[in-house]
């Protein structure tokens, strides 16, 4: 008997480093992003937006715009065919403003024209008369001001009743005796500015009418099916007649969970019966998506003389901006992770998110845990200083471990190797300082050439962070995958994987293929079908570090079913014969938190957790307040690395986003108006601001997850802001209670 023919797919299984399927096209510039879409005869859509943060709309006059050259449609709220409001979780946001605008940049009207410039010119002829209203711009004062949403859209959903005006959600966690005293107490007030996802690919998409009243929408998004379920009612169409297809995503980070141009493009396309493309420009993109919640946090940590935490008290105030988006879940997360990955016997944690006329906030990488990690880790360092204990040692003494109980009463049944990530990170050798003289670009201030070493001090910071993996609090979350098995012309066995998991750059496409290769080692080739709502059920969102876990679970189930069916048929397929099976994967069920006590009402409110420890070496020009992050070492709890290179990529990227929040990234506003909506003034780290990251992958299998995997995208972002600022405090001796840290604060002005 001769040896079986070599199969093409001996490599690229789960656990192996596999080159990204989109690596070459992205590097060569051939990858088609959603902004590159084209259809014959397409029109260009343009959105008229509110110049006010808060105003009453007196009138909208489109009569001057309609006869403009090239114009094919001008639409207002009166033209929305179905439901006038939509929302990711609560339908509180008008498709187009009706009688009031609640934030700067809110969509008011739409134009479609033959050329984008014609659309823009016609848009400028739409006369909207506004009566400006006093904007609510301070989160604390909002709790006593006029209601922005008098119908309280988030009320009646099982959250704690909070009668104060403008509350999106209040979450209170009472754990043990919240008045328990310790031998030592430290406190602080912390603040975080508004961070933007700053994805490079602006909101964009193409809507194509199908000629039968339905619509195909090609768009960069994070969750195809939830887009469909929001779009269809507004168009007054059955969900099946709205098909959402994933277009090339130029970054997401939470900012594409909410809709942008989807309904607008579809309205214009259905009205004109022509394809309509909408691409936001950079300025527009800053108002085109939600941001990370800015926060003010009051924290007190009490510990005994040995450094064991006795009680944590924290009050968190989040500014949700004009609409709810995913603020209710962010509010809860902020409270859930307020204590950090530490065992705490007693706690009182209060988290409130309010409506204001500031830019709307929602999901962004880290999702509530970033804010509290920044405050909590600063507190841990204060405590270490007050006790005279090494900061790493203090964290080890309090590290959570399986079997411990979280402040929500949830018992840790799965993996959470906090002590191990701390030890592994602490063991990474910190490099010696670079000597002098050296090129200015490797000193604080970089190419600005401001120092040859004058004023420069080095600081080392350490931080630990954790957050949940997956959707929480009873959300019925699932992922579908469909696998088609057939023979190709040469008689080879091919598996075609259908999954609507959004590839947002995180590398889930590779994961889907790797799982199929692993589970169907009998096939000669694995193909990945386009991500769409048209051929497969929902995959859920590319969010909450959940997609690798969920989609690999679904593909594995579908593959197992396909394999079983193949065995039943005798182990082979005839030409033309196929097996086509769809399966749904669910993670262990969660249940809501009690609205009064914040305690679990079942076994768990969160599915699972992941943690990371990080050490940062920073050099600070203490006179000018400029920074060079010189080195970062981290150990991250990844469960199981399905594609190790991709995991390292997520750690580096996630870390860079946290470095950005620590040092420079902030949306600035004046009376609710964004004043720095450009990459000239909204700064994100360059290669000179981001050092090499030495990352240790801690593989401690998650018992409830396929292959033991955990999501890896968020923990680095949760921890890095805290770790960077800890290094800056060590270098300057200053408190630095607000991020992004500004040069004047580092310089002590």
């Amino acid at each position, binding site marked *: 008997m001769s040896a079986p023919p070599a199969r093409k797919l001996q490599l690229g299984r789960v656990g192996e480093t596999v080159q990204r399927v989109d690596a070459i096209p992205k590097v060569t510039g051939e990858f088609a992003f959603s902004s590159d879409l084209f259809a014959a005869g397409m029109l260009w859509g343009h959105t008229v937006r509110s110049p006010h943060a808060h105003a009453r709309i007196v009138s909208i006059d489109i009569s001057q715009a309609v006869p403009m050259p090239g114009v094919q449609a001008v639409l207002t709220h009166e033209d929305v065919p179905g439901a006038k409001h939509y929302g990711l979780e609560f339908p509180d946001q008008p498709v187009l403003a009706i009688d009031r605008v609640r934030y700067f940049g809110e969509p008011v009207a739409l134009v479609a024209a033959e050329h984008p410039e014609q659309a*823009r010119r016609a848009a400028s002829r739409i006369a909207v008369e506004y009566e400006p209203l006093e904007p609510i711009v301070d989160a604390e004062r909002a709790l006593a001001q006029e209601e922005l949403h008098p119908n309280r859209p988030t009320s009646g959903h099982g959250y704690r009743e909070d009668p104060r005006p403008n509350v999106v959600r209040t979450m209170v966690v009472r754990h043990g005796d919240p008045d328990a005293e310790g031998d030592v107490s430290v406190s602080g007030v912390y603040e975080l500015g508004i961070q933007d996802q700053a994805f490079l690919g602006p909101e964009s998409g193409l809507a194509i009418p199908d000629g039968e009243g339905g619509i195909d929408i090609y768009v960069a998004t994070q969750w195809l099916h939830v887009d469909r379920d929001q779009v269809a009612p507004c168009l007054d169409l059955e969900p099946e007649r709205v098909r959402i297809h994933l277009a090339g995503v130029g970054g997401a980070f939470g900012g594409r969970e909410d809709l942008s141009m989807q309904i607008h493009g579809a309205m214009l396309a259905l009205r004109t019966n022509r394809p309509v493309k909408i691409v936001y*420009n*950079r*300025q527009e993109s800053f108002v085109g998506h939600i941001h990370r919640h800015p926060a003010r946090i009051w924290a007190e940590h009490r510990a005994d003389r040995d450094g064991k935490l006795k009680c944590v008290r924290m009050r968190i105030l989040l500014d949700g901006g004009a609409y709810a988006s995913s603020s209710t879940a962010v509010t809860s997360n902020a409270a859930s992770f307020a204590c950090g990955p530490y065992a705490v016997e007693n706690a009182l944690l209060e988290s409130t998110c309010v409506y204001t006329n500031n830019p709307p906030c929602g999901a962004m990488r880290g999702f509530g845990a970033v804010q509290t990690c920044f405050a909590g880790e600063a507190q841990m360092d204060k405590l270490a200083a007050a006790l005279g204990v090494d900061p790493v040692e203090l964290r080890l003494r309090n590290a959570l471990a399986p079997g411990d109980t979280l402040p929500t009463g949830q018992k840790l049944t799965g993996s959470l190797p906090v002590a191990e990530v701390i030890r592994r990170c602490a063991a990474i050798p910190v490099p010696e300082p670079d000597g002098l003289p050296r090129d200015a*670009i490797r000193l*604080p*201030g*970089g*190419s*600005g*050439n*401001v*120092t*040859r070493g*004058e*004023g420069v001090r080095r600081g080392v910071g350490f931080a630990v962070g954790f957050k949940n993996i997956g959707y929480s609090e009873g959300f019925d979350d699932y992922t579908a995958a469909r696998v088609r098995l057939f023979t190709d012309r040469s008689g080879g066995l091919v598996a075609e994987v259908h999954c609507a998991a959004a590839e947002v750059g995180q590398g889930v496409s590779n994961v889907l293929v790797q799982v199929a290769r692993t589970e169907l080692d009998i096939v000669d080739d694995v193909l990945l079908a386009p991500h769409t709502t048209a051929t497969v059920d929902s995959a859920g969102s590319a969010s909450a570090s959940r997609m690798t876990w969920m989609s690999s679970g679904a593909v594995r189930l579908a593959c197992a079913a396909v394999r079983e069916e193949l065995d039943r048929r005798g182990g082979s397929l005839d030409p033309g014969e196929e097996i086509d099976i769809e399966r749904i994967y669910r993670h262990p069920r969660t249940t809501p938190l009690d609205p009064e006590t914040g305690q679990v009402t079942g076994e768990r409110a969160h599915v699972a957790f992941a943690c990371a420890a990080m050490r940062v070496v920073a050099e600070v020009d203490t*006179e*000018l*307040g*400029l920074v*060079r992050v010189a080195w970062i070492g981290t150990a991250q709890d990844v469960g199981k690395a399905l594609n190790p290179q991709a995991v390292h990529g997520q750690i580096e990227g996630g870390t860079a986003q946290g470095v950005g929040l620590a*040092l*420079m990234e902030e949306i*600035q506003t004046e009376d609710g108006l964004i*004043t*720095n909506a*450009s990459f*000239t*003034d909204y*700064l994100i*780290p*360059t*290669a*000179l*601001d981001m050092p090499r990251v030495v990352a240790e992958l801690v593989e401690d299998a998650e018992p409830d997850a396929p292959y033991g995997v955990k999501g890896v995208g968020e923990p680095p972002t949760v921890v890095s802001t805290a770790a960077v600022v800890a290094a800056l405090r060590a270098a300057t001796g200053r408190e630095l209670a607000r991020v*992004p840290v*500004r*040069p*004047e604060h580092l*310089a002590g*002005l």
Partner: protein
Amino acid sequence: MEVVSPRTLEEALRLRAAEPGLMPIEGGTDVMVDLNFDRRRPVGLLNLNEVPELRGWSRDDGLLRIGASLTYAQVRQRPLADTLPALAEAARTVGSPQIQNRGTLGGNLGTASPAGDSLPPLLIERADVELASVRGVRTLALERFLLGPKRNALAADELIAGIRVRPSGARQTFMKVGPRNAMVIAVVSLALAVDREREELRAAYGSAGPVPGLVTASTGERETFPELVAAAAEPIDDLRGTAAYRRHALRVLVGRALERCWA
């Protein structure tokens, strides 16, 4: 939008005189941003990239004549970089390598931003701006050319043809403060020269007043010079920084620059 591409300076000047509404453009690193943001809607663009007289640089008896089309990347190259070292250091701080390949000195003068990176190094070398029109050529001291934030003395029919400067040979440096280590608009910047021959200290600040400003003193005033420069500046609070920080940073920068250039 109409784009007109003259092939000679003479043709460019004729077009400029005939159609003052055309926006002169070189690398486009400022003009295209304004167009994108809809801050400007000129009737057309006067593309100066094909005008050979605006390219390159030459030296005649100690007088340098630098064409307006010289890019930052070219400014960074030797031997010009050895002759105007602070200007070369400033060019290194401009945007990214891609921007340095496109952006030009002429464009920086045309924009006349208080944050223009090439302006302080040219001020400390007491450079003149060469302005050409169908009426002829005039030169104007850079200090007199810069009138206010994004305002200069260019007449409606004139083009910036180049820069004339007699390099001082003085030790000099350029520094720029920004919260990011590359690709930033200056929060505050400084060029400084210690001119032993003339026993003069010259400092020019950027982003600390309506125009980049030149401050001079004798070398004997070294101790008080940081304070003198900081006091001469007229910084404001804006989203990039506070007036207090800018003044403080200027003081620090002048101190360090003096140290660097004193030897």
